[in-house]
Each structure stands twice: as C-alpha cells, then as structure tokens.
C-alpha cells in the first residue's frame, strides 16, 4: 500500500481500534508520483501495485472488517432485549413478594406445550451465567447484576456503532480516492491525445 507522505495527509486519527484510517489525498499527481506508481502505462490498471487496484484491495479489507462488526452488532442488538426481559421478570417477582400471594405463570415446556407453574414467595432467583453455570442470587443482587450487564451491553453497542461509522467513512474516502485517481488518468490521456493531435 502506498505510504503516506506530504501529498497524502490524514487529519485526525490514523487508526481506530485496529482499523487503519484511509489517507486523504490532497493532490492526485503528487500522490501517484510519491508512491512510485505508474498509471500511465496501460498495463498499470491490471498490475497488483497500480493505484486503483491496490486501493480496491484496501476497500475489500475494509468490507471484511465491516462484515465482522455488523455481525457483532447484530448479536449485541439481540442480547439487549433478552436482558431487559430478565429484569422485567425479577421486578415482577419482587413486586409479588410484598403481597404474599403466589404467582401463577404458564411457561413453555417444549414447543407448543405449556405448563402451569405456581411460584411461591421467594427471596432468591437463579441466573443463568452461560457456560452451563447457574447461580442463586437474592432479588436485589439479581437486579443489580442484570442492570450492570445491560449497561455493559449498551456501552459496547455504542462503541461498535462508532467503529462502524469510522469504518464507513474510511470506505467513502477510499472510494472517492479511487474515482479521483481514475479521473486524473482519463484527464491525462485526453490532454496527451489533444497534444498529439495538435502536433500531427
């Protein structure tokens, strides 16, 4: 990949959490000259090292990272409503605790089969922590733990969204640079053609 030099200055961050920033190109001509890439030769577009295809490799890499981040975002977005549901249940149990009456609930035993459960007044709930581990907690501790999980998940989601935005910006910058390099080359060919036409 072309090394950043005075012609390709990137303002702001140079990378974010492992995602390299796309260098913004001030002037196409100096950028090409300094990276030593020869766009003039007609084969340049096909060569690995030519400007547009090396930029498109960069674009593909960005796309890969974007897929990964989008998958993570989907997972988090699914996890948050689950945690909220758990909080709901614990809150309901806590509310019932005061009244002294049992909570009757219908729950799913298997798909399409439901059974009735009578939940007595209780002080503790069991929380599934994952990895085949379930722990007993008092209602207050359970609420606190679930609340903390919810906050962590929401915070991670925010960071992820910011990462995705940064990534999309870099993709846009790279696409614009590819277009500009291409246009510059077209422009060069045209000026050379008109110059050749004038000479002949």
């Amino acid at each position, binding site marked *: 990949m072309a090394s950043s030099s005075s012609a390709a200055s990137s303002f702001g961050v140079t990378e974010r959490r492992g995602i390299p920033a796309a260098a913004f190109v*001030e002037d196409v001509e100096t950028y090409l000259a300094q990276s030593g890439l020869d766009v003039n030769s007609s084969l340049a577009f096909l060569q690995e090292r030519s400007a547009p295809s090396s930029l498109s490799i960069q674009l593909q890499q960005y796309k890969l990272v974007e897929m990964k981040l989008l998958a993570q975002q989907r997972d988090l977005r699914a996890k948050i409503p689950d945690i909220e549901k758990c909080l709901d*249940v614990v809150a*309901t149990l806590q509310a019932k605790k005061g009244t002294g009456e049992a909570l009757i*609930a219908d729950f799913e035993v298997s798909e399409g089969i439901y059974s009735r459960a009578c939940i007595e007044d209780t002080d503790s709930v069991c929380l599934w922590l994952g990895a085949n581990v379930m722990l007993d907690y008092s209602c207050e501790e359970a609420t606190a733990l679930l609340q903390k999980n919810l906050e962590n998940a929401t915070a991670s989601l925010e960071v992820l969204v910011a990462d995705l*935005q940064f990534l*999309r910006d870099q993709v846009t910058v790279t696409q614009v640079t590819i277009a*500009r390099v291409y246009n510059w080359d077209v*422009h060069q060919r045209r000026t050379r053609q008109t110059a050749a036409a004038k000479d002949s």
Partner: protein
Amino acid sequence: MQQGNASDTEVTWEDQQNINKFGRLNNRFHELEDEIKIAKETNENLEDASNELILTDEEVVRLQIGEVFAHVPKDDVESRIEQMKEVTSKNLEKLEEEKESIVAQMAELKKILYGKFKDSINLEED
C-alpha cells in the same frame, strides 16, 4: 468541454468530510426507517391487545413477562398496556423527530455538494 470530469474540481478535505457526513446520515436514515416501522408495529399490537382486553370477560389475563405468561388480574394488565403504549409512542415520536432532522441535514449537504461538484457527484438513492 469534458463531461462530468471530477478532476477539474479538486476535492478538499472539507468536501471529503461533507461526503463522509452525508454517507453517515444516509445510513442512519435507513436504520431509522426500519426502527420506525418496528415501533409502529409494536404500537399497533398494543392497540389490538387493549381492544381484545375490553372485549374479553375473563378476570385473569395471561400477560407475557419475559418468557413466561403470568396470570395477572385484568386491571393490572390494562394499566400495564397503557404504560407500554406511552413508552412506545414517545419512542416513535423521538425517532420521527430524528428522521426529520436527518432529512433536513441531508438536503443541506446535497445543496452544498451539488453546488461544488454538479454532475460529478451522485447523491440519489439507487
């Protein structure tokens, strides 16, 4: 005169930032449209639920809390549904507002970018 030749108009860092911002807003706009659709559906479901409630003559209604259906007296369910309806409609309002502000910002940016680049840039939906 060369047609649609972007190399005649130089792209400055400010232009790049505007383009980036437009891209971000566009993405957020699509996300918002999806979220608004879901919020509207939830609202409708709650409406249907409260209508059904009025029609039913059972005293105890099964209300879904988490993964289970708890037996709750009808009045509690009614007030709960009212609460949920309020939350969803406030959420919907907030989303609609955000959508409008994004549309306005995008129109502004379109004006600026088309002004500078004219034909060399395409900011329309495909």
